[in-house]
């Protein structure tokens, strides 16, 4: 089984974030492998460990994003593809899906995995857009994947329950981070990753032009989330506490 995992380098959203001169700025500038993509890499490795095959990864991003490809290779992926885009300004989910669709025309895989969303923009579009552009049947928001050799059985989180979806190869799955806990690369894995191949690809190599990839949506600015009105904190005997808060819910908040 051959699986391509599409990965993205994103800012660490757990770090404090502020708006400076209209742009987002994190205190640490630490960039990480998108957590949902890491779950995709993990699940692909588990599947190929059980059924044989190979996991490759592809990333769109600037030169410095190569460290994120190395991370996936250290986890156990075999080959990295780096589609180098230094400045993605003006591009949106659709633009990235178009680039990945052009890349997929040059390679053949049984399955393509993506994260269900990226933890910075939380759009959750690129994966299913890629499926549509590549003509692949897909399942989104996977929390479990098994293979019967001819295809995948995907457990996806739906609105009211978990839906079991059967997909034949080739297909695409977008992965939830609730599926697994991605492995931490071992020292041996890190050493091995340094010898693994990362192929650098320019947009021109895919017969693409950055200007023609401009998205139909754009971010025009950022704002802070309005703060909730300050609340009150109580510490007292549990029976008094219960009486007091129920009184407030009844008479002040008027929600019960």
């Amino acid at each position, binding site marked *: 089984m051959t699986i391509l995992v599409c990965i993205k380098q994103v800012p660490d*959203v*757990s770090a404090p*974030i502020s708006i400076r001169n209209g742009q987002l700025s994190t205190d640490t500038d630490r960039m990480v492998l998108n957590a*949902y993509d890491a779950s995709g890499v993990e699940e692909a490795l588990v599947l190929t460990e059980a059924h044989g095959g190979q996991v490759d990864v592809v990333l769109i991003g600037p030169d410095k994003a190569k460290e994120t490809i190395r991370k996936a290779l250290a986890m156990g992926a075999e080959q990295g593809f780096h589609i180098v885009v230094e400045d993605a300004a003006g591009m949106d*989910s*659709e633009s990235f*899906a178009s680039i990945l669709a052009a890349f997929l025309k040059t390679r053949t895989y049984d399955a393509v995995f993506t994260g269900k969303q990226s*933890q910075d*923009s939380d759009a*959750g*579009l*690129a994966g*299913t*857009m890629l499926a*549509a*552009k590549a003509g692949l*049947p*897909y*399942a989104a*928001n996977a*929390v479990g994947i098994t293979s019967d050799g001819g295809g995948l059985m995907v*457990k996806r*989180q*739906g*609105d*009211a329950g*978990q*839906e*079991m*979806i*059967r*997909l034949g190869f080739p297909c695409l799955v977008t992965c939830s981070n*609730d599926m697994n806990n991605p492995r931490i690369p071992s020292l041996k894995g890190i050493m091995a990753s340094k010898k693994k191949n990362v192929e650098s690809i320019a947009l021109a190599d895919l017969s693409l032009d950055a200007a023609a990839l401009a*998205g*139909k*949506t*754009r*971010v*025009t*600015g*950022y*704002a802070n*989330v309005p703060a*909730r*009105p300050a*609340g009150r*904190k*109580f510490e007292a005997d*549990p029976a008094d*506490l*219960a*009486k007091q*808060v*129920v009184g*407030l*819910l*009844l008479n002040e*908040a008027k*929600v*019960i």
Partner: protein
Amino acid sequence: MLLVHIATSNGKIKKSSLEVLSHARSEAAKAGMPLGALVLDPDPGRYVAEISAYGPGRICTMADPIFASHLNQPVTQALKQALAHLKPKVVAFASTEAIKDILGALGSETGAAVLPDVATFALTASGVKATRPVMAAKILAETEATADLVLVSVRSGSYDAVESPGSPVVEAIPFQAGNLNVILKEILASAGGQVDLNEAQVVVAAGRGVKDDDAKRLVDELASVTGAAIGASRAVVETGMFPATAQIGQTGKVVSPTLYFAVGISGAIQHVAGMANSKVIVAINKDADAPIFHYATYGLVGDLYKILPPLIAELKAVYGR
């Protein structure tokens, strides 16, 4: 036309769809644009009266047994057919898991611009502008889409559902079923609470502080007394104590009930992203410095095992059950 997709589940319209329809009505009126509603269901006629109460000029129905359960391929096929027929400028959806499943594919297949999971939206001369929470809902991004067709999905609780009855034209659009290469084998029903989390007016959510069956029983009892849906943080879903369908947060459900009880939840940013829009938040945590207290309307510092029993008793007296 501004078209609103109406989501249904088990014979009921989702409240989040009526919220979107209500806001769309005022946007369409401002822009002088006709307002339509579209419902896909095995028996969509049963919803026409309720949808009419929210004032669309036209209600379009697509009927097929396959819409009884969500599956991305037939839903995308149906929406493509409806859009080709109705030629709307903008289609608005409630941001359910079913819509998250198809929105990107539908956007690519129709050449639409897509604004997913927005907190607010407004029509502009050339498309739609919207605000979207990003960076684990710490920041709002102001976004804009310019295209002949814009798809926008709206987070639940962003607007109020307000009736404004009209006399709409009702039109049945035929559904041409296509070949399927995606198969729904089975739905594993959730073993969670009886109340739908997205629709609930009251939510009782459990976190890491809910350590054992005794604490879980207290959570269940609090939910039963207040008629609440039961939610959970990622930590207690991972331990298997609560079902994955109960997970609230950046990766789970986004809820905005009138009253939210956070029981033993520390308030990690990934959890807060899914509940910060709740009207009143009551937090119970023994750690006085827990981040959840920054969001709580009423923060109760103490042991949940000691606080919940009298709280349940007081609420029982109020609710009379």
